[in-house]
């Protein structure tokens, strides 16, 4: 009835309803089998990379610092889409062929690794110097203090900004459609190209991204609350 008011032609309205219904399943499948796993795998790999990069960045070994700086600068200074194209379309020229899904995982992980490393580095540096001294004073080594005392506290500090990264990542995975990953937005493009109802199908995809991000922000709040248990 809502559609009827916008589209006076009842047949058109019925057709739109039909398209909306039939495209929902393929879109959901794209989200469940590609977009969401891609996000999760990438985030875990990226986070791992980010911690290593942050540790390299604050280490006293000059070479590690330099490598980390170059990596961060290169990733942040080039568009994500261009990075994906280099990995998927570019590397075959030197004989390295990677399938679309793996290309996307590599590209996004490198991206998350660089951005999140700065978040983690800032979080580590935000922990008061007294915590290091207290750790050292009971005889701990640098790596013991880092692992047992500093990183757990830094984790708590970095949850809100890391959640931002995570939510951005959900949306960025739509770029994988351009390196032929059949994730949600690629499916939307395919559907729309057959029925020309771009507004309807893309809006439907947008709505699904929104729903996913909404649930993620709820999880974020729960996580923050959990990590808050020792604070005043």
């Amino acid at each position: 009835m809502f559609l009827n008011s916008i589209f006076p032609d009842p047949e058109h309205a019925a057709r739109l309803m039909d398209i909306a219904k039939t495209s929902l399943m393929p879109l959901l499948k794209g989200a469940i089998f590609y977009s969401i796993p891609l996000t999760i795998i990438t985030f875990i790999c990226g986070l791992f990379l980010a911690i290593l990069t942050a540790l390299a960045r604050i280490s006293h070994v000059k070479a590690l610092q330099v490598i980390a700086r170059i990596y961060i600068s290169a990733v942040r200074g080039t568009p994500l889409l261009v990075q994906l194209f280099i990995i998927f379309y570019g590397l075959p020229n030197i004989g390295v062929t990677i399938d679309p899904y793996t290309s996307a995982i590599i590209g996004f992980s490198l991206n998350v690794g660089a951005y999140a490393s700065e978040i983690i580095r800032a979080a580590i540096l935000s922990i008061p110097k007294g915590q290091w001294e207290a750790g050292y004073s009971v005889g701990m080594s640098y790596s013991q203090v880092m692992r047992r005392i500093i990183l757990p506290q830094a984790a708590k500090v970095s949850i809100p900004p890391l959640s931002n990264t995570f939510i951005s990542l959900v949306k960025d995975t739509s770029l994988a459609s351009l390196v032929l990953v059949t994730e949600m937005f690629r499916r939307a493009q395919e559907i729309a190209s057959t029925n020309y109802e771009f507004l309807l199908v893309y809006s439907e995809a947008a709505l699904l991204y929104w729903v996913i991000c909404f649930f993620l922000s709820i999880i974020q709040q729960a996580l923050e609350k959990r990590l808050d248990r020792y604070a005043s």
Partner: protein
Amino acid sequence: MISIKNLHKRFDKLEVLKGINLEVEKGKVVVVIGPSGSGKTTMLRCLNVLETPSEGNISIEGQSLDFSHTVPKKSIAAFRRLTGMVFQGYNLFPHKTALENVMEGPIIVKKEDKRLAEEKARALLNKVGLSDKVDTYPAHLSGGQQQRVGIARALAMEPEVMLFDEPTSALDPELVGEVLKVMKDLANEGMTMIVVTHEMRFAKEAADEVIFMDQGVIVERGKPDSIFTNPKEERTKRFLNMLQ
């Protein structure tokens, strides 16, 4: 026994310690007093190498570090285990309960069995009067309680000497007493202690020796009675007068 020989500490051009010589016998309590900027905290932090001395030699119970050349990290970590440090700002681990704070060193550094470490930690918290706070996080403890956990945490490593860096300076006046009481008990048990403090009453009641520092040197040392009632040096007199 602790012995400090010709200890110097420079921060860039500023010389904070200008050749400190000090010997402390086992079981003695030494209180270090002096105006701010006198180098007393720096001296204490040099003893557990939180500050690396620029020059000099420190030895505790036969283990010694010579700072005329670079000291390897391993020997610093081993040396630190001889000392227990209590900080002005407590520096408890906020993500760990009182019990976990005390157990952390023994488990991670000494690789002690978890159950044994917990038993000892409970005994130590009981000793500092906090047996009802074992599972409480630092944020929910008062300053005095936090500092007592700090003392228990340092004791858990079974150090040869306890170092106190202005342990009551950050406390509300009504909480000072409970911390000083724990420290006095420790002194009575024969723990070797070096205490930097402004609590002259503690110095009078618990110290075997009082050391007055000013501008990076030890100006005067002696029994608390003689320092407080009959100081020999002009600078000591002036400092003690200012406190009255």
